[in-house]
């Protein structure tokens, strides 16, 4: 089987409201930046996979807004209505099918253009859940309480995640929310849906991200610093919230096991150098770390307390600040992959993890993490 590598990435700065750009302009900014970076043009792209949501964008096929911007005329463009990590999977599969040599993968989203609470409510089933007014934040809060109670953790433990990630975000010029604060400060932020406070919840962001995938025989045409996709796992759990144990995620455990096995990773805690997680809420960094096998169940907090996952620690988690620093729906997972790739290319600037050669990037979608996609990336083939 052919190997596939990421040969270039670009992302926008993330902000609460990017009124200066419509969807096409947002997409064009990153595609143009990528093309300039690689010295290529529209004719070098074989096919395009995008990620966005019809409901979020308020049009029947959301990718139509960006098709010209990604250079999709007289080419094959297709979309996943899900997180960007799944667009990478789809893009890789299109190369592995033998039909294409390169895939441009783009995700775009603007939370400023719709009502996020109502859109979050529309995620739920119209017949038996929407009437209750659930949205993603309310669901996340109930997961947080169940998780904290099960493992005897406190809101102060969640605040430690906030302090680490918002602190990391101060080094990331693309982050929307960056703060140098203490646990006490974090515990003073507004209680939104208890036990979650404003700073425990990812901000709503506008932005876009793009990357270019290439088949191994074409890689050298684009870059001398390819980042290889060496493992991937994608699983989902039941849709209905009441059908799942919210304190765990079997789909994430399975996705991790699959990705590790494909990449030949036996001890992720020792073998990985950097991790970028999709944590919409502070408690999810702890939960996802545990389910990825980086800590015992309920002991994800020890990774933070002992400094293992801080910037400069043994295994930095979310050195970019993660999703608590910027959260453009469906884009945020692709940004995790892009950030992991930047780390492996030594291009992560002030939050570079020295000598990183193996990275994990994680994406999720659906209330409380229904669907998970785990990627292992390496700068060695």
């Amino acid at each position, binding site marked *: 089987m052919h190997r596939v590598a990421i040969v270039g990435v670009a992302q926008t700065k993330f902000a609460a409201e990017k009124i*200066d750009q419509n969807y096409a302009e947002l997409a064009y900014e990153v595609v143009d930046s990528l093309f300039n970076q690689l010295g290529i043009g529209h004719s070098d792209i074989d096919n395009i996979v995008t990620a966005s949501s019809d409901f979020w964008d308020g049009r029947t096929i959301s990718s139509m807004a960006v098709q010209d911007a990604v250079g999709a005329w007289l080419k094959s463009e297709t979309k996943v209505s899900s997180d960007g990590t799944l667009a990478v999977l789809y893009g890789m599969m299109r190369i592995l099918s033998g039909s294409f040599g390169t895939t441009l993968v783009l995700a775009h989203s603007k939370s400023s253009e719709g009502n996020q609470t109502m859109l979050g*409510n529309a995620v739920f089933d119209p017949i038996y859940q929407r009437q*209750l007014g659930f949205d993603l934040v*309310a669901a996340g809060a*109930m997961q947080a309480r169940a998780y904290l109670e099960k493992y005897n953790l406190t809101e102060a433990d969640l605040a430690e995640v906030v302090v680490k990630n918002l602190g990391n975000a101060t080094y990331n010029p693309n982050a929307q929310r960056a703060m140098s604060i203490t646990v006490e400060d974090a515990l003073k932020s507004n*209680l939104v849906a208890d036990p979650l406070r404003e700073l425990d919840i990812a901000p709503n962001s506008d932005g876009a991200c793009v990357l270019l995938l290439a088949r191994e025989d074409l890689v050298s045409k684009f870059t001398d610093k390819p980042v290889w996709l060496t493992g991937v796992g994608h699983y989902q759990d039941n849709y209905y919230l009441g059908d799942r144990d*919210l304190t765990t995620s079997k789909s994430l455990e399975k996705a991790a096991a699959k990705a590790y096995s494909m990449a030949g990773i036996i001890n992720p805690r020792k073998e990985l150098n950097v991790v970028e997680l999709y944590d919409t809420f502070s408690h999810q960094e702890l939960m996802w770390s545990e389910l990825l096998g980086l800590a015992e169940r309920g002991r994800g907090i020890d990774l933070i307390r002992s400094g293992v996952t801080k910037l400069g620690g043994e295994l930095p988690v979310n050195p970019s600040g993660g999703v608590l620093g910027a959260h453009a729906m469906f884009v945020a997972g692709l940004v995790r992959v892009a950030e992991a790739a930047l780390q492996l290319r030594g291009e992560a600037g002030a939050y570079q993890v020295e000598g990183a050669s193996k990275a994990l990037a994680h994406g999720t979608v659906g209330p409380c993490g229904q669907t998970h996609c785990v990627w292992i990336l390496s700068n060695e083939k």
Partner: protein
Amino acid sequence: MSTPKEKPLYISIKTDLPYAYSAGRPLSRFLVALRDEAKILASRCNQCSYVLVPPRAFCTQCHKLTPELVEVGPRGTLETFSVINFPFIDPFTGLERPVPYGYGIIKLDGCDNLLPHFLDISDHTKLAIGQRVEAVFEEKENRTTALTDIKHFRVLI
């Protein structure tokens, strides 16, 4: 010619797209039983015995059809909860729901899965995971053939 000083415009569109979603047969029976009899029905799998609320046409555990409906609840155990402090526009009424209000996830007696629903938070001190709760139904004349015909769950003393 435009200058960088010109402020970009927003083009506002309020999309009102009506849909009528089929509830399917098991869920229709569930909603009618809530409305007419204040009973909570669940599907029970003949193959693996798994009981699901609201009822489904097929089992989420073994993928077999589940023609049998059984009555569950109205009491249960609180698995988790949250007190919501942010305003929410009710998509069905267009009105902003007063805050704070409670959500709970409840394991109804006789059920294998969980039911997320409103939680009465008037006695805040009694909210705890593991607390016994009970469904409170809307007055019969106020029922609308919806899951909200259960008004909320209240804590049992």
